[in-house]
């Protein structure tokens, strides 16, 4: 029964999303357009995060390490 109540909960969350963004009122082709746009934006944001976040995190990590102690190679430039 956990799966059923889980599915009901997810469906209820979807209904809330529909009500808040007013896609409850849209005709089917408008909904398609709206969801396609939203999902495209979301996928682009996630892809950008996947590509760039690891680089940013490692450079930030090295910057903080340099700030708190000088124990690593001098060949890495300090990022201000």
């Amino acid at each position, binding site marked *: 029964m956990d799966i059923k109540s889980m599915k009901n909960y997810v469906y209820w969350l979807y209904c809330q999303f529909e009500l*808040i963004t*007013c896609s409850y*009122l849209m005709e089917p082709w408008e909904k398609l357009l709206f969801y396609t746009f939203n999902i495209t934006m979301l996928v682009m944001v996630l892809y950008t995060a996947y590509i760039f976040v690891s680089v940013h995190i490692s450079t930030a990590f090295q910057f903080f390490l340099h700030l708190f102690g000088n124990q690593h190679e001098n060949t890495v430039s300090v990022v201000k």
Partner: protein
Amino acid sequence: INHIVHNGGLYKRPFNEDFEETPMLVAVLTYVGYGVLTLFGYLRDFMRQWKIEKCQNATEREEQKDFVPLYQDFENFYNRNLYMRIRDSWNRPICSVPGAKVDMMERVSHDYNWTFTYTGRVIKDIINMGSYNYLGFAQKAGTCQEAAAKVLSQYGAGACSTRQEMGNLDKHEELEKLVARFLGVESAMAYGMGFATNSMNIPALVGKGCLILSDELNHASLVLGARLSGATIRIFKHNNMQSLEKLLKDAIVHGQPRTRRPWKKILILVEGIYSMEGSIVRLPEVIALKKKYKSYLYLDEAHSIGALGPTGRGVVEYFGLSPEDVDVMMGTFTKSFGAAGGYIGGKKELIDYLRTYSHSAVYATSMSPPVVEQIITSMKCIMGEDGTTVGKARVQQLAENTRYFRRRLKEMGFIIYGNEDSPVVPLMLYMPAKIGAFGREMLKRNIGVVVVGFPATPIIESRARFCLSAAHTKEMLDTALKEINEVGDLLQLKYSRHRLVPLLDRPFDETTYEETED
């Protein structure tokens, strides 16, 4: 803001009015919703203009396209793109008497609310929470109906003339004497239409060189009457006595705008109960201000006559004041008396003047005799003059229903506007999709409600308005409350951040503090 007012003994009872602030997240999400709908509105307008989609709304003809555009303003944009999507919640056709329960014709739309077709089925016994049936006189059987049928067979249905020509029947004289006795004033006059009572009589009372101070949220009939009169109009904030006093002081001190002459008359226009907010006017303070600054008061008791006060005499009796303090008492017979029309009551000289100079008396057809008889019978019933206690029982039942319903809704966690004692209960919805969803879901559960959106309310404060009735039994109210609770959970409408403490069993006295905890 919650406040209980006990200022200087003007109020003989606590005045509990509450307009909870919109939660920030809800306001932001409402704007997001309206933003999305506006973008799609522009898209649809673009498609309609470039003939990608069939244009089903009204447009100008080809020859008129070079003239000033007629349908480009915001109201028309709202109409075609937002109102049309949720239009099935309004103008629903009913096919029985709108009492506590009503029958409705089912209709479907195959092209997203541009046209409707009837399926032929009649939805029976919908609990009616939208009719202004405060004392339950909208009935098709009973003493009122029998008396009206008898008068119909005696006088016919039409009066066929104006009051000043051949339309003044003895029934009208009887009605006016009865209304004057009911209100406790010297004399009264009745008109065929409530809207026309306001819009046609205010021009007869004030003119150029007079000042009208009107509340922010006054009804369209009062606004129209004030504009038609030609007087200067100044608006004070809703039910805000400091704002009104400031305007009165400025008016007395500075006089008319350029000439600095004193104003000929200052008339304050207020309503008894404001139907969109459910708030009651602060009448003791208004009367104190009126007496201090020597101005006149016009009180529109459209929703409060019959619904407030221990014997149903309206907001004047609710506060325990004397009807002689109010210069012009206006009201309608549409809401609590189950008929149609309006009245004005006041001093004999005032009413005699109105009989000669009011536009409505000269040009409007007089009231239809069966309608007059319905008012006479229902008014006698409320006053107790027909020998039974039915009227008093109804007034008490309405007060009990009001208190119970409001308390239960607040306990559930909805945001409810207005005064504790007003039978008009607005429940805040805020988001545009929830307006349509609430109306439809309640109809699925056999309850008919009225939802109100943009032109009648500010754009983010849309609401569902319940009108309680003495004809609603406790079982009906419990059913309705159960369904409202369910729909509230389904649509996430329980925005209130106050938690109401369950009502304690002690009488109200001067030391009662607010019974909410934040």
